């Protein structure tokens, strides 16, 4: 395997890690505040649909993204109502949201566009294009003949859509917000001991709603990236379990932002391997079934959850509705 192949795989690792990272950080905010969120998948899916649909009809990818975020935040609000206000089971609410998104997106896509539950392909200004950094080579034959450093710069660092860079920047921002601000301290506290936070005169309900809302925003970005950055349009069930992989990454990262980055990169790497079976087969010198490569991220998730990589302790009040008078 030559350097360029490795760079190409790493490049697609970054691309595939982007939606995982957004979703993972979304889950981080929600779960740090004590609200389990297995509806990441559904929120991403509805955002993917709305962003592709609006980007296609308006011809503007940014309007599409806003629509995607709106859809995702709406589902997040539903999750908030169910799990904060009505103290419902957060897991069941998440499952309901996933199904709601799965059915609703295809139904409405068929109604709007009549293309078998897809949106038409988005292109040009209706899609996030790669940003070419100054001096980066664009043509593949130029890159092939360039020096290794230039190859890395052009292939790996330059050429991603803006949302990939946003996702990477969101990691330090999340870290700063959670660990260096008053809001972050309160948010983490509400996930560990909401009673104490309440006693200190801080509103548990509104803190949790804000956290769930941030999760909605970030899932919206993840969905917009999926449908108008990574792919060119919405397709049925296009999230393909990414929301759950993001959850696994979150547990692997033990609910910490920097670790989340590395966990998502690892899963992105596994996903990119399944796109390059030729490289994998060359490396291991026998034919690996494609299905095994597809299943690899899920298998790794189970291995990680099995605790072979150290014990992950969730926020203590996670999944528990807060009852004031208890």
């Amino acid at each position, binding site marked *: 395997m030559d350097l360029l192949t490795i760079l190409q795989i790493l490049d697609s690792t970054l691309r595939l890690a982007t939606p995982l990272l957004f979703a993972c950080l979304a889950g981080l905010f929600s779960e740090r505040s004590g609200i389990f969120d*297995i509806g990441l998948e559904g929120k991403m899916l509805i955002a993917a649909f709305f962003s592709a649909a609006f980007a296609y009809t308006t011809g503007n990818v940014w309007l599409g993204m806003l629509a995607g975020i709106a859809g995702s935040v709406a589902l997040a609000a539903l999750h908030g109502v169910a799990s904060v206000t009505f103290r419902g089971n957060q897991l069941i609410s998440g*499952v309901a949201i996933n*199904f709601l998104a799965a*059915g609703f997106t*295809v139904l409405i896509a068929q109604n709007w566009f009549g293309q078998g*539950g897809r949106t038409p392909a988005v292109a040009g200004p209706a899609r996030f294009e790669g940003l070419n950094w100054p001096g980066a080579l664009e043509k593949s034959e130029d890159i092939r003949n360039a020096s290794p450093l230039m190859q890395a710069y052009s292939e790996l660092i330059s050429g991603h859509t803006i949302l990939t860079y946003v996702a990477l920047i969101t990691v330090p921002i999340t870290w700063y917000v959670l660990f260096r601000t008053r809001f972050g301290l309160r948010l983490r506290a509400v996930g560990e001991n909401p009673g104490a936070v309440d006693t200190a005169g801080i509103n548990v309900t509104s803190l949790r709603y804000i956290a769930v809302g941030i999760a909605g925003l970030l899932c919206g970005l993840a969905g917009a990236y999926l449908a108008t950055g990574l792919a060119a349009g919405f397709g049925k069930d296009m999230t393909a379990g990414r929301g759950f992989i993001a959850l696994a990454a979150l547990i692997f990262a033990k609910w910490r932002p920097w670790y989340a980055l590395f966990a998502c990169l690892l899963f992105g790497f596994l996903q990119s391997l399944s796109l390059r079976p030729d490289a994998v087969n060359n490396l291991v010198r026998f034919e690996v079934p494609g299905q095994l490569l*597809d*299943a690899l991220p899920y298998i790794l998730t*189970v291995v990680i959850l099995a605790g072979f990589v150290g014990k992950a302790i969730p926020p203590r009040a996670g999944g528990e509705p807060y009852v004031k008078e208890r």
Partner: protein
Amino acid sequence: MDKMPRWADVFLTPLISLILAFFVSGLVVLYIGENPIEALSILIEGAVGSAYAWGYTLFYATNFIFTGLAVSVAFHARMFNIGGEGQAAMGGLGVALVCLMIPWPHWILALPVAVIFGALFGAAWAAIPAYLQAKRGSHIVITTIMFNFIAAALLVYLVVEVLKAPGQMSPETAAFQEGSNLPKIADFLRTLGLACEGRPLERVCRAPLNIAFIVALVCCWLVWLLIWRTRLGYEIRSFGHSEEAAVYAGISPVKITMIAMLISGGLAGLMAVNAVMGEAERLVLDTVQGAGFIGIAVALMGRSHPVGVFLAALLFGALVQGGAELEFEIPAITRDMIVVIQALVILFTGALDNMVRMPLERMFLARRKVG
């Protein structure tokens, strides 16, 4: 003292939740630009309006009884088994192997063995998540979801690369041998002396309803027996109510987690007896078709009680069959509508349960004070 009478808890709250779910679904239909009343009447007519419709509705209901019971048993131990989809798919593998490998002389011999293998394969697929939950505390919700994906990949591999009949294009195994084919409603009518001829009967005879329906009913009874009439069922319920109390009473959490999940997986696996052995009579890809997930809605609506599960499964069987007719009559309302309705039922009966329950409780308390 109970806040509400039992009938209100068992019937009224799910009924109101169901009405809410249908109301919101009606709004969606209205948005699509179709008439919800008309849609509903097509759905009902298509689901229960003829003997033919019943033949399909009960067939689907059979699937959902198995997956609904599976989710229910796990619920009693306060575990959320979202892996019914994968467990049922693996059950299909077990059933298919039994039917393909052995030249069965008669279905009456094939059925019990297929039941055992379907359950074994389903249980085996639930065993690893159960073990990880019991021993290592890995969250069973996420591990079972992962096992759904892994099962899907594994089955694609096995069906396409290993089990596919030689010289066949489509990804499916060879048809099972005659001797393993379960008697369907048509055979039942023939034994009653009714030939499958003439207008109404001819159509009924094409329905896939088969003897697995009886197996499902037996399973309902057995689950009831297990949960409410055995020591093990008592232990499962105690564990579900309070793990600490159960441990104090000498109940092993590891044992209960494992057993409840194995039973749950086994019940999900049994679905294959209906879908693979009863209907398809070969192993195709995606035999489960979301039934594992519908089991969640069924268990929630049925309050995890076998009678409730049976009724809720009937409802969802009617929804799926009626939905297919609806898509045929009004193409704008695709079968994804069923997924939306299912999601809303899960939302209202599961997550927003308190939204319905709290005002009802207040109402009954107020009435009691007056009276």
